[in-house]
């Protein structure tokens, strides 16, 4: 393909949205009238399309990795055809009776509620570009977290956060500490997350309310849960449900 340097620059700047109106019109005109210019234009369009496709492919890989972590927790009803309906109805009745029995039998003290509602936040924080030492250390800590080795994870995450403070690391550190029963440390982590960052504040508040429950401080838990229950999204339904129970 014949490539004129200035034409190529013009095409590149067009796709980078770096042209004024007059030059934009010039590009449009030449695409319609000049075959070799159109070829340059279409090649650039194709390359950008493939870059976007590759980008989607990478994001898809990331979502699949996340899905593997999250799907360990899901308990969904399988799809059943109509002939199973009588069994479903019977199972539902039994389910309601069992749930009623469990609800009456289980003492609703704050620690029990904590146990029922606490589920460590999944690791969904990918490393950015860092030095080899930082990346290795961080990866090991995150790996330990994923494996449920919260002792190693807490140590590693604390160091990783110290070296390179990021809200995601602090959220996981708080969760690791809470899993280990180090409630004051976890509380400190979540408070720092709320105070110092704009991200992950709802998640931090949810886990902070669980810290309060774990410590038996029902009143503070209620304030936090009420606040979360009033939000538009994220944790609202779970917070409302838990608020009802502690109330």
């Amino acid at each position, binding site marked *: *393909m014949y490539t004129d340097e200035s034409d190529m620059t013009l095409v590149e700047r067009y796709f980078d949205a770096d042209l004024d109106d007059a030059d934009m019109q010039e590009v449009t005109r030449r695409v319609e009238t000049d075959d070799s210019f159109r070829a340059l234009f279409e090649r650039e369009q194709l390359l950008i399309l493939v870059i*976007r496709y590759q980008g989607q492919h990478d994001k*898809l890989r990331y979502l*699949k990795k996340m899905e593997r972590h999250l*799907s360990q927790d899901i308990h969904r009803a399988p799809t059943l055809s109509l002939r199973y309906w009588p069994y479903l109805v019977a199972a539902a009745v039994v389910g309601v009776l069992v749930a009623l029995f469990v609800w009456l039998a289980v003492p609703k003290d704050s620690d029990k509620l904590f146990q029922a509602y606490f589920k460590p936040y999944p690791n969904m*924080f990918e490393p950015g570009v860092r030095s080899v030492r930082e990346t290795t250390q961080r990866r090991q800590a995150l790996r330990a977290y994923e494996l449920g080795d919260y002792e190693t994870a807490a140590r590693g995450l604390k160091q990783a956060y110290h070296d390179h403070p990021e809200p*995601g690391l602090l959220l996981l550190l708080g969760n690791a500490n809470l899993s280990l029963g180090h409630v004051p440390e976890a509380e400190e982590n979540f408070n720092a997350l709320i105070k110092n960052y704009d991200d992950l504040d709802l998640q931090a508040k949810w886990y902070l309310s669980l810290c309060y429950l774990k410590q038996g401080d029902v009143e503070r838990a209620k304030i936090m849960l009420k606040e979360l229950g009033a939000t538009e999204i994220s944790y609202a339904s779970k917070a409302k449900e838990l608020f009802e129970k502690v109330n």
Partner: protein
Amino acid sequence: MTHNDIISKIRSGGQNELGLVYAEYREEFLRWITKEYHCSDDDSKDIYQLTILIFYDNIKQGKLENLVSSVKTYLFGIGKNVVRDVLRKEKRYTPINQEKWLKEYLVEDQAHAPDERAFDIAGIALGKLGQPCQRLIEMFYYEKKSMVEISEALQFKNPETAKNQKCKCMARLRKLFEEERSRTQNTINHVY
């Protein structure tokens, strides 16, 4: 945090914010799609992943700037279109080919659909480009990051250096594409 806050966070942020949205609506979406369309577990997850990718793409491409409804309503709306399209294109019990679907989704957006073979050749050229060029142009053209953000993330001296590097990477990609294209052409000529 409002719904539009989420949009602006994803627009300025990256993968982690997307992951948060994914986790947030996952259970409800999977429950809904399984019930409504009788999809298998695997199909429901595949459809949810495609839905999230389109949501992300719409934000990054500037198609979604402000939400008039909630994120949930918007996601479920995309999901409904994805599942209908998948059911239309695929046989009922064939597993969903996500990569093929994504390719078609991107191509359908173009005024002129590119040649299938040229698309594959461009993919090979991109694979040969190597790092950090691949990452840089992906951040610029797919994630729509500014040169300031790119220079910080990839540790360039300044945004101007990042921009120069991006131009060099694109020039190299064009060259690789032409080489690959003529190599493929020669192979075809040789065979016949």
